[in-house]
């Protein structure tokens, strides 16, 4: 591949890319991000390759990232010339021949796609390119358009604009979507200060959790003394249930790289690092491939786009410490030392990596930059709400129907995320709370269901945006147990440098364990509160000073559950084993004998068609009887 030096060169690559995005022959794409692979996409991909080869078909088989609706993966998208793009959900290797049949016949029967797309949005170019030419074929009329699917209806994809749309292995496809045109614009038509002004005007706030104005950070770093400066991408996403950044790094690595090159030019940096946790092997591989491609095209290295600007990027792999998502710990780890944070009284934009001015933003923040440069600050700031412009990517997990990754305009009511996009709570259960902001975030109760989802509102409610995890809980979730879960996670992940986090979180975990085990004592709740304040004030880094949040926010909104555990020795949600008791309802039991057979300790007895009895001395409270009873006859108290 020859180097790209001019707009003409870039246009040529874009043309090649467009031919592969919307080709003149049939293309089949498999969602092959980690979420897809985890649900069997690799087997589906292999089966498709085999079937295409066996039938000697002229079909392009391609890989793409994650569209977000993980609960219906593996996804196979079929794009035939001049027809809508069809998305087949929950595809298995077994279903492949049937899908190929439909492609060959050109008709949908039997295997119905989940949705169709009539056109593709090219965000950076501000245009939509049609797949479909002419009216929708009769047999496809009944298939909903993607925009009508409740999961997608209220979403707006900026940072994840190319995820699930382009082949993540192709730089040309990225360029066709408007990629690297922003870089060309920045390097040839804008001064560094103009870029910074644009980012400030856009109102882009750091998506990693802190929500600091990205443009201001860039400006401070640009103005900091020192001839060597670094730009860093934080891809050390470690919150349980969060995988937004992984999806972007896997599905659209070039968007991060392009954002970083633009940022480096604006700040005056010639070296950057992408810090990725090594538990994300696909992200590492896709980023590495993308870096090689960009270097081959002359988009990284010396004299980028023939403008005289030099910049290169390296991947730093994390060794699996949660604390390395904290900026100073991340930089220490990049330096090759044990990842421990330091006090930030002197900011990293002045003294960061190897004591040089360093600008760190997270994956999602960087991925937004090319879109801001191409479409302008005014466009970006028109999305979202006051002081919170743009979109935010969330991972919706837990007790929710539509598990997946969603990108929504800032300021969307939480209710719409939970009930419209997320499709509500499974099994007709009642919504109880959502944990936002990862382990250091907080739980928002039902009374806050109408809250506007933005940095400031979440903070005011005692939680935080964090990087974007959303763990939904229903009435069967015990909030004390949840607090214990997160505190346990944080105890395990504490680096151990400062006393309040290392010893304090460990002692809080002990107290919470005692409470859940029915050994809670009067004064425990008050002690937890006072310890929390000491940890908030006393811990060294942001991980430590937010470590008490799971306890503080559950205490704030669910104090009665703590009281029930400590005073009444009861777990209202029926979760904490030491505090619950299983019995059989005389009214509802039909004596069918299913629980009796399933019980692992054989502690259930009873004659056929007569009420069964649980021997409390042998019951281990595993809950199998309750799960297996069709008549809802098992009582948990």
């Amino acid at each position, binding site marked *: 591949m020859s180097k790209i030096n001019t707009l003409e060169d870039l246009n040529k690559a874009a043309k090649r890319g467009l031919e592969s995005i919307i080709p003149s022959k049939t293309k089949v794409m498999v969602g092959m991000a980690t979420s897809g692979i985890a649900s069997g996409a690799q087997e589906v991909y292999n089966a498709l390759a085999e079937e295409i080869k066996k039938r000697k078909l002229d079909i392009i088989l391609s890989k793409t990232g994650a569209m977000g609706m993980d609960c219906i993966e593996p996804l196979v998208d079929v794009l035939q010339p001049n027809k809508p793009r069809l998305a087949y959900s929950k595809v298995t290797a077994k279903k492949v021949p049937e899908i190929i049949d439909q492609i060959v016949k050109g008709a949908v029967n039997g295997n119905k796609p989940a949705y169709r797309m009539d056109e593709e949005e090219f965000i950076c170019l501000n245009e939509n390119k049609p797949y479909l030419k002419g009216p929708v074929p009769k047999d496809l009329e009944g298939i909903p358009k993607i925009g009508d699917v409740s999961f997608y209806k209220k979403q707006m994809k900026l940072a994840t604009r190319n995820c699930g749309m382009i082949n993540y292995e192709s730089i040309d496809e990225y360029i066709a979507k408007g990629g690297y045109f922003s870089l060309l614009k920045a390097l040839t038509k804008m001064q560094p200060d103009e870029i910074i002004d644009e980012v400030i005007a856009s109102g882009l706030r750091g998506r990693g959790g802190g929500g600091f104005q990205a443009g201001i950070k860039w400006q401070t770093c640009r103005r900091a003394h020192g001839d060597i400066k670094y730009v860093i991408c934080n891809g050390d996403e470690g919150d349980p249930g969060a995988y937004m950044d992984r999806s972007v790094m896997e599905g659209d690595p070039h968007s991060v790289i392009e954002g970083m090159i633009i940022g480096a030019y604006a700040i005056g940096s010639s070296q950057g690092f992408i810090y990725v946790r090594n538990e994300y092997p696909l992200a590492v591989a896709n980023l590495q491939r993308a870096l090689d491609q960009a270097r081959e095209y002359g988009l990284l290295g010396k004299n980028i786009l023939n403008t005289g600007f030099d910049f290169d990027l390296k991947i730093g792999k994390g060794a699996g*410490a949660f*604390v390395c998502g904290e900026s100073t710990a991340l930089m220490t780890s990049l330096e090759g030392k*044990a990842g421990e944070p*330091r*006090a930030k*009284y*002197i900011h990293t934009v002045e003294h960061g990596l190897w004591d040089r001015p360093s600008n760190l933003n997270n994956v999602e923040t960087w991925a937004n930059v090319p879109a801001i440069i191409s479409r302008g600050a005014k466009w970006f700031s028109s999305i979202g709400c006051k002081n919170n412009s743009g979109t935010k990517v969330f991972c919706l997990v837990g007790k929710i129907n539509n598990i997946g990754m969603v990108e929504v305009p800032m300021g969307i009511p939480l209710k719409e995320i939970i009930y419209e996009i997320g499709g509500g709570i499974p099994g007709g259960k009642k919504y109880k709370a959502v944990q936002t902001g990862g382990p250091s975030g907080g739980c928002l109760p039902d009374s806050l269901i109408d809250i506007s989802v933005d940095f400031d509102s979440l903070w005011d409610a005692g939680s935080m945006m964090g990087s974007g995890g959303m763990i939904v809980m229903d009435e069967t979730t015990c909030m004390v147990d949840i607090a214990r879960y997160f505190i346990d996670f944080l*105890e*395990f*992940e*504490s*680096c*151990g*440098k*400062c*006393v*309040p986090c*290392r*010893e*304090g979180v*460990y*002692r809080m975990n*002990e*107290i919470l364990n005692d409470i859940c085990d029915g050994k809670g*004592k009067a*004064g*425990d709740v008050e*002690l937890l509160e*006072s*310890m929390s*304040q*000491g*940890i908030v*004030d*006393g*811990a*060294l880094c942001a991980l430590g000073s937010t470590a008490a949040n799971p306890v503080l926010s559950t205490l704030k909104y669910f104090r009665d559950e703590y009281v029930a555990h400590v005073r009444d020795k009861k777990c209202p949600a029926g979760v904490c084993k030491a505090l619950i008791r299983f019995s059989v309802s005389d009214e509802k039991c039909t004596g069918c004998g299913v629980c009796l057979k399933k019980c692992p300790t054989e502690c259930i007895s009873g004659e056929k068609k007569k009420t069964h009895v649980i021997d409390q001395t042998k019951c281990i409270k595993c809950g199998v009887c309750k799960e297996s009873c069709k008549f809802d006859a098992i009582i948990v108290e």
Partner: protein
Amino acid sequence: MVSFIIDGKKVEAEAGANVLQVARKYGIVIPTLCCHESVAPSGACRLCVVEVKKGKRTRIVTSCLYPVDEGIVVETKTDRVLNVRRLVMQLLMARCPESEVLKDMAKEMGIEPQPAFHPDTDKGKCVLCRLCVKACEDVVGASAIGLSGRGKNKKVGAPFMEDSKTCIGCGACAYICPTEHIIMESTDSKRKIWGRTFKMQPCDKCGRYFAPVDQLKFISDKTGTPMTELAVCMSCK
């Protein structure tokens, strides 16, 4: 020079100094465990926290690290500050129940152990202040010991917790340890530390055993001074 207020008193200090240094200069008592004039501060123990008001913002900071600044208002004994110090002391006493140093400090600060914390039995007297590690690395230059693991299982020791191969027996770690956790056993001709027994060098002049042979070799290698010159104790030099 910058001027600011500490506990209601107007004070002056060199720019670049930290709050703890200035406070101590003015006779204000702030407890510390991980602070020592020979090594750079790390902010690990959190006992030295103070409350700082800068502009409109008031927050708790670590005085050993916080650089003084024109116009800041520092309070060293507010309720918030004392709450952090109490928590830290109670947590450390639960970690190291045998430490007399901690007990004395707590007594002076008027802090009782927290009965809800079950005392640990496996941590000895180590509060993980990391002074020993810093002294070994930054002052001595031997880097014989380090920190391994994380969280409450973090530990000071030689690599892989084996008997140290690079320790020179200088004892700097034991001297700097604020809680007397590091044990150094000495007889006239021998010294035992970090699993190794070191032979002591007798003074060429007075015959008194004064330093481990390995330490003198280390110094000789580093500085180029011949061993013969080093084999004389400080009193006879």
